[in-house]
């Protein structure tokens, strides 16, 4: 080696090259790594984070858990009997019947009632007003009245407050029937819930179909239609009639929802259908017939003048139609040849309202000395009585099926029995809680399916609010506190609806994915390909480093 100094020098210079080459390759690899780190490790997550759709964390598990929680209406029933043993027997019998109930959990309490209280009462009305009758909302008192046949032929009499009076010989089966069918109306509730949960499988019953959907406020609009003011003159004080007849009833319902009463007069709005003329026959006067199937066609042209441009509340419409003499009397026919039952010339359109046809009196029409326009007086008690009956159905107080030997006290002026109000509370609580639960669940399902929906803080808050209100409502129902549960359910319903219908949800919904890619691809594709390709070089370099180290170790 020493004899060839020149060659060693040569080797050195040659040997220099790989050293330098290695260093420079290292730098290049470092550069490639830094590209990778900046673009992929930092850049990609940063891009992802900054373009993310804003969404407040939501209580998904609690929403899912709502499905499992069962709505149970806890109700306290007090059985007041003269003989405490009989009371206990009744309680255990009734308890057995109600064990199978899915919705109701009934607590029976037995008390003994002093004979003198009953004896001193002259009538059921007196008992109604006595101190016994005060009950908390939702509770029921079954009161044994030994001398009930004195007052009524029925065995069981349901009062205007929360008391059921029964004669001593009443069986527990009969009492169960009264509780189930009249006071609790469990089947209606069941049908309502199942039709909300699975609308395709089950249908509402008649009462449910008529009832207005739940809302925090309703408008009640009374419209008087005078199609021909040249022939008929109506000088009616509508406002006073509303104040006298409808307002007391609606004041009763105030805890359930707000009712705004409005009224208007419409002129020159004719029936769009042609009533059939029934000519004079022996025993039948000449009149006009309107078939029941045609009634929906009357509503449609009216609708144009009934809408409100400011109110968002559902509206209950009540229309009085006064036909001119030339088209009266006008009667609604249920079917060929059968005039509507009860002689009430009115009909109810479910979830919409009612229409009454008020025929001008025959003597005024026939009297040619009365010049046109002929003045027609209003029969307010008939018109408003019909409207009240229709309003009860629309608000959700159903017509109850008869039970033999069971009756109820007639309605007071207020138009509502307390236990009817309670059952209305139950319906509304169930409806609102179920609706809130379903709304929340479909919202959380939507959020899972569509990633573009924004949930801002406000919507997030109302969702939280709705979830806790549903939970609170269920809890309050377990405690048997009907009024507080109603407030909670109302809160839940309103918050859930507000969250679901908030316009901010849709802010980004119509920003389609393909447009996003159209914007990103021109940038991402040409940049990412070389960076990703350089990964191979980095790998090879790293592998060679490891091998090199291994070799050194072996050496």
């Amino acid at each position, binding site marked *: 080696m020493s004899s060839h100094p020149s060659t060693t020098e040569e080797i050195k210079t040659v040997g220099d090259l790989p050293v330098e080459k290695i260093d420079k390759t290292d730098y290049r690899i470092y550069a490639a790594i830094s590209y990778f780190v900046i673009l992929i490790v930092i850049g990609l997550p940063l891009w992802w984070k900054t373009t993310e759709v804003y969404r407040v964390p939501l209580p998904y598990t609690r929403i899912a858990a709502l499905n499992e929680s069962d709505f149970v209406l806890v109700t306290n029933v007090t059985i007041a009997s003269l003989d405490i043993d009989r009371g206990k027997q009744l309680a255990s019998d009734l308890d057995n019947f109600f064990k199978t109930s899915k919705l109701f959990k009934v607590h029976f309490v037995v008390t003994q009632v002093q004979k003198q209280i009953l004896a001193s009462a002259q009538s059921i009305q007196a008992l109604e007003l006595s101190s016994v009758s005060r009950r908390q909302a939702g509770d029921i008192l079954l009161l044994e009245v030994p001398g009930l046949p004195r007052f009524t032929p029925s065995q069981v009499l349901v009062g205007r407050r929360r008391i059921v009076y029964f004669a001593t010989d009443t069986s527990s089966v009969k009492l169960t029937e009264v509780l189930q069918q009249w006071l609790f109306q469990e089947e209606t509730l069941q049908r309502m819930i199942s039709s909300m949960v699975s609308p395709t499988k089950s249908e509402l019953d008649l009462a449910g179909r008529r009832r207005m959907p739940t809302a925090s406020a309703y408008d009640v609009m009374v419209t008087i239609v005078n199609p021909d003011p040249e022939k008929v003159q109506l000088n009616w004080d509508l406002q006073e009639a509303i104040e006298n007849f409808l307002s007391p009833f609606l004041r009763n319902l105030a805890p359930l929802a707000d009712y705004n009463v409005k*009224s208007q*007069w419409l002129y020159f709005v004719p029936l769009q259908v042609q009533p059939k003329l029934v000519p004079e026959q022996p025993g039948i006067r000449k009149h006009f017939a309107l078939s029941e199937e045609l009634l929906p066609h009357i509503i449609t042209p009216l609708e144009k003048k009934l809408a409100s*441009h400011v109110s968002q509340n559902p509206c209950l419409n009540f229309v009085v139609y006064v036909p001119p003499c030339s088209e009266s009397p006008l009667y609604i026919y249920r079917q060929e040849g059968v005039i509507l039952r009860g002689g009430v010339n009115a009909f109810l359109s479910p979830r919409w309202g009612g229409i009454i046809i008020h025929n001008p009196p025959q003597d005024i029409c026939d009297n040619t000395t009365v010049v046109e326009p002929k003045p027609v007086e209003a029969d307010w008690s008939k018109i408003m009585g019909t409207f009240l009956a229709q309003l009860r159905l629309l608000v959700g107080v159903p017509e109850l099926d008869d039970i033999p030997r069971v009756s109820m006290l007639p309605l007071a002026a207020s138009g509502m029995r307390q236990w009817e109000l309670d059952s209305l509370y139950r319906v509304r609580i169930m409806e609102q809680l179920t609706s809130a639960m379903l709304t929340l669940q479909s919202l959380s399902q939507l959020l899972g399916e569509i990633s573009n929906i924004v949930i801002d803080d406000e919507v997030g808050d109302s969702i939280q609010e709705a979830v806790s209100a549903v939970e609170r409502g269920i809890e309050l129902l377990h405690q048997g506190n009907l009024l507080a549960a109603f407030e909670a359910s109302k809160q839940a319903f309103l918050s859930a609806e507000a969250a679901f219908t908030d316009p901010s949800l849709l802010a980004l919904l119509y920003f389609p994915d393909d447009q996003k890619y159209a914007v990103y691809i021109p*940038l991402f594709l040409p940049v990412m390909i070389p960076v990703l390709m350089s990964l191979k*070089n980095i790998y090879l370099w790293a592998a060679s480093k490891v091998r090199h180290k291994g070799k050194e170790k072996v050496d």
Partner: protein
Amino acid sequence: MVCFILVPFWILNVGQCLVQKDRFDEELLLKPLPSGHVYAYFQFTTVWDAPSGPQMFQHCHLFPRALGEVAGRHNVQELHVTLTEGLWRYEYWGFPVSDAAPGAELWTWFRNDTKDVDNIWKKLTGALSGLLCASLNFIGTPNSLSPEYSFRPTGVVKNSNLNSSFVRYATLPREIVCTENLTPWKKLLPCDSKKGFASLLNAGHIHNTNYHSLGLHIRPVCKDAKCTEVSIELRQTVSLVYDMMILGFQNQDWSLRKLFGLGLSGPCPLATSSFIYVDVTSNETGTPYQLQPEPTEVITSIRGGYESKFKVYNIQKMSFTHMLNIVATYSTPKVYAVNVPPVLYASRYIVGYGQERGGIVTKIHNNHWKHLDIIYLENIPWFLPIYLHTLRVVAGGKEITPILKKYVPGKERSRPYSLEVLLRIPARSVTEIYIEFDYVFLKWQEYPPDANHGFYIGSAIISAYLPVGKNYMGLPQAGPTIYSSFNASREGFLLQLRTESLIITLPTPDFSMPYNVICLACTVVALAFGPLHNITTKRLCMKDGNSCNGLLIRLKSMLFKGRKPQAQAH
């Protein structure tokens, strides 16, 4: 302190003692204009002694409930909406009964106890937009003014201490008025369009006019002479100007049937009064015309020193065996006299060139022999910043100093420029008001559809108190009906003129630009990034031919790998 500043003088006939506390009057005024056009003005007035309080508009009889609900919900004290197509030509036509700016115009006084006026204003315009099928919902704070002097309440006010923060004024000059506005407007009438004068309003014969304007005016008025209680007055108006020559008739004769397509079948049975007035003043000076049938009455009205004559048809007293058709026939061909313009009129135009700076010039003509005090209200949208220091008022070569200036500078996207100038314009002069503005760039989403069409600037409003009643047809403040304007001489007559609305072209971008920019920028970045990446991570070096195994060679070798052993086997 509560005081009423207005006292009514009209109580035409005390209506029958009814439960319903409202009355409805329908009127039609027909007037041949000096230019040969025919002016038809319908007015339907409902006055209602509404109960005050929150339940005010809940129980309606003749008053339209839909409108009452809107007014009641939004705490409205006074509401004036007009929807107009065309321009009223003051110079040739004189003054209309009720003035309106082209497009949609809305002004409202809210009650003094209203909180958050801006918000309620927005809601009100939304509700009215639904009610009248007009784009009034585009009115909001960014295009609304609160003028201090130009818009005072026209009705009763409980407190004479007025605060202009409760008034809002806005126009939509681009609004096109058509049948979809007329139909809901007619629905607000008690007789709808089934009976009475409203049956004459047929879309086909309204929209072929030179000028048509629908109006809705709500205001509180005094219930009686003592004015201790307040009633609500709703005035629904239609102004139409027909040009008989372009309608295809060979002469100047006109009739109800020619104007409206059909005759009148009778009054609205709900109306307390139904009158048709035909202005025959021009018969005295110009070419006379005869009316068929004969009127029930002739009224001579002297107002502000000027006499006018009206032939009156009391429709309720006429018997209707067939449709009523009022026909006006000229015995000789009409001769047009030299136009005598009214006391005050104005015109407006844009000056400047290019798309940087411009100016607005308003010329106000005063033909009166005495100076006139006027209030000039300029309503400029926020995207045209005006410069107050460039405001120049020149009359006959001499600069005039305004008596008072009230300027509210605009704010981008939140407030328009509002300028009110109180001026004393000299007698028999033309006053020129000039102000400069800048054109600005908008954000690309702020351009309306068809941005190249241009942007509208609403009319300027000139308010004046005329000392003479020449050409003046406006209603007196206390009276709602045309009837009440007969012989109603006052010290002065409040007149408001609307000028032309203007159209300007703002610099308009190419709207596909953002996407193009994105694509171009991305491509440039990608193009720059590729070589940079290559330079920094790769090195160009020579490779010897043997070790050169590119993709092609490797593929080849893979293909021929299988064959070689076979060949050897043979």
